[in-house]
């Protein structure tokens, strides 16, 4: 049973022992970035920060797919939802993200056909059920989501569906790590690497990154004890001066990941330079539809009249995504920008750093 497994790893005693070990071992200050949004939420929800010594600073990274989606892509989603005859299919947490003029939630309230789906395959079902409508799936996410979307596109090709397309804004994680290390204002001593993404790409996908930068890189799972175990490995590496690429989530992650999923992904998608909110354009970090599947590319199928994308004034999401600033440092945080009335995407997504701070650590909790 999956859950019994989960409970075992949540076991309070193991977690307390790991935290005690970290407190006993850690002497040098470490700035440690958790790259993945699900890690961020797990860290906050479990109150894990309150168990760590002051030497360990956790920085939340750019691993929330909604948060790093470029404003121009959000504007395109809104424009697509407004196209006559279109059914816009989206994951739930994109609904509230404010674009330059509107959000999908507002478009739905205005009568556009915006449907929340739980998987890309749901949007294929919509296309089959509505042959006289165009169904556009908004493809956002990392290597975790991309293989399913790729499989969906292959299924659409096999079925010869003419009314289905994908607006791909998928992104890949290793490219973002590289970009972060190249930013002068970003000072990171070690990385907690994302568990789900690594299930697909494998630990070896980070090898060349690690060789170039020689900072501790440890793949972590999502239970509090998983995270503490990975942090303990990092602290050991830091204290002994022996950085390494390590896997602290071996029950799910293999060195070569999931070759089948990677094969599907690389058949359907081709790398492309992509804009990230906060990080700018990163070479080869996006996934565009490969020529063989270009007919399912919403970017080619629709001609959109897009506004000049303007990121919200005063919003520090960009710097927060790189760990250069903390949410409470943003002048909008908690006043002008709240989960009910978000200004930037980091406050919208449940996995966004600002939302996690707002929900779990406002007015307390050291970090």
């Amino acid at each position, binding site marked *: 049973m999956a859950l019994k497994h989960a409970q075992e790893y949540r076991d309070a005693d193991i977690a307390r022992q790991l935290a005690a070990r970290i407190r006993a071992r850690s002497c040098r200050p470490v700035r440690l970035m958790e790259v993945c949004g699900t890690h961020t939420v797990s860290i906050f929800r479990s*109150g894990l*920060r309150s168990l760590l010594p002051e030497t360990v600073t956790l920085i939340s990274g750019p691993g929330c797919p909604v948060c790093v989606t470029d404003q121009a892509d959000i504007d395109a989603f809104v424009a697509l939802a407004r196209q006559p005859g279109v059914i816009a299919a989206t994951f739930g947490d994109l609904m509230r993200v404010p674009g330059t003029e509107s959000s999908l939630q507002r478009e739905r309230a205005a009568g556009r056909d915006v449907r929340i789906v*739980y998987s890309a395959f749901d949007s294929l079902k919509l296309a089959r059920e509505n042959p006289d409508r165009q169904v556009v799936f908004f493809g956002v996410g990392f290597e975790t989501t991309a293989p399913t979307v790729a499989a969906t596109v292959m299924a659409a090709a096999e079925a010869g569906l003419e009314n289905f397309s994908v607006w791909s804004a998928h992104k890949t994680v290793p490219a973002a790590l590289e970009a972060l290390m190249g930013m002068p204002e970003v000072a990171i001593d070690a990385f907690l690497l994302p568990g789900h993404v690594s299930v697909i790409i494998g630990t070896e996908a980070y090898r060349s990154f690690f060789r170039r930068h020689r900072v501790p890189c440890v793949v972590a799972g999502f239970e509090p004890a998983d995270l503490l175990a990975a942090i303990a490995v990092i602290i050991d590496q830091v204290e002994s001066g022996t950085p390494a690429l390590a896997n602290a989530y071996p029950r799910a992650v293999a060195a070569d990941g999931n070759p089948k999923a990677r094969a599907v992904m690389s058949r359907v998608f081709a790398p492309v330079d992509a804009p990230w909110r906060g990080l700018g354009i990163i070479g080869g970090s996006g996934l565009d539809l490969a020529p063989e599947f270009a007919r399912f590319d919403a970017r080619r199928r629709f001609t959109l009249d897009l506004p000049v994308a303007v990121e919200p004034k005063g919003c520090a999401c960009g710097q927060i995504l790189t760990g250069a600033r903390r949410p409470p440092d943003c002048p909008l945080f908690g006043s002008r920008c709240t989960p009910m009335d978000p200004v930037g995407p980091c406050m919208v997504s449940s996995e966004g750093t600002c939302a996690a701070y707002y*929900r779990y650590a406002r*007015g307390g909790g050291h970090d």
Partner: protein
Amino acid sequence: MTLETILLDHGAGGKLAHRLTTEVMLPILGNPILDGLHDGAVFDLPAGRVAFSTDTYTVTPLFFPGGSIGDLAVNGTVNDVAMCGARPIFLSLALVIEEGLAVADLERILNDVAAAARRAQVAVVTGDTKVVPRGAADKIFINTAGVGVVAEGVNIGGHRARPGDKVLLSGTIADHGMTIMTQRADLGLALEMQSDSAPLNRMVQRMLAAAEGIHVLRDPTRGGLGTALCEIALQSRVAIRIDESAVPIQPAVAGACELLGFDPLYVANEGKLIAAVAPEDEAAVLAAMRADEHGRAACTIGEVTTGPPGQVTLTTAIGGERIVDMLAGEQLPRIC
């Protein structure tokens, strides 16, 4: 001609409306007061202060494991009245029906209303039916209002929690919300979970009979346990600390929450209550709750403290601390 589908004419007050009332509704819901078909119900109430509450129900799907919009509409209002410390007695029932609803579905819903009313020992004594054009409502919306009587000496209110009070919870959280969510998402997990929709008035009467030190009662419906605790902390100007590992949750519900990225503290319940109780009455009230079929898993989850007014904190299973905030907007399933 037998009735098969609800038409706009059924709400127009003419012959069809009369047939709907007399042939469909009264056979299911009838009682001496309702059968009179007056413009309103006339009745006596026992002595005491009167509690009065109303709520409107809309849910997709209409029928789900563990209940339907029919029993929700009764239990929800019965519970709101009960949370005032009152014994609910009478309900009103108003239906807004989208034309095209199958009469068989309406009958099924009304049967659930009748069964829930019997179970809660309340009577539906007045009602109304409107039919709106297709698209103007989603199949059926139901409003119920309820009146009840508060016994002498009972004084329950969201502002009455005091430092030192124990916080009790009547059972597992998030069952209703996750059942509905997984039904909508068609995730195939539904077999393992069902809504907790239930009337809590009998349990409340048992609790009130067991001890005088019950200060607050609240049913954590929309917004979940977390939001309800925040409301109590704000209204009473106290802090509340709860212990995560003490909060019961069904394994299947916890799994569904993890899958969709939901925090169970903010997921709706429809058959649970929280109580703030003077520490000396904790054992007696817990025993009264556990003696009731809807409170078998009742437990203490935390206490009221002198911390910053309005603040709710949670001690996590691994011994960490964090804030519990009110839910902001509906939880949306995440991308992973």
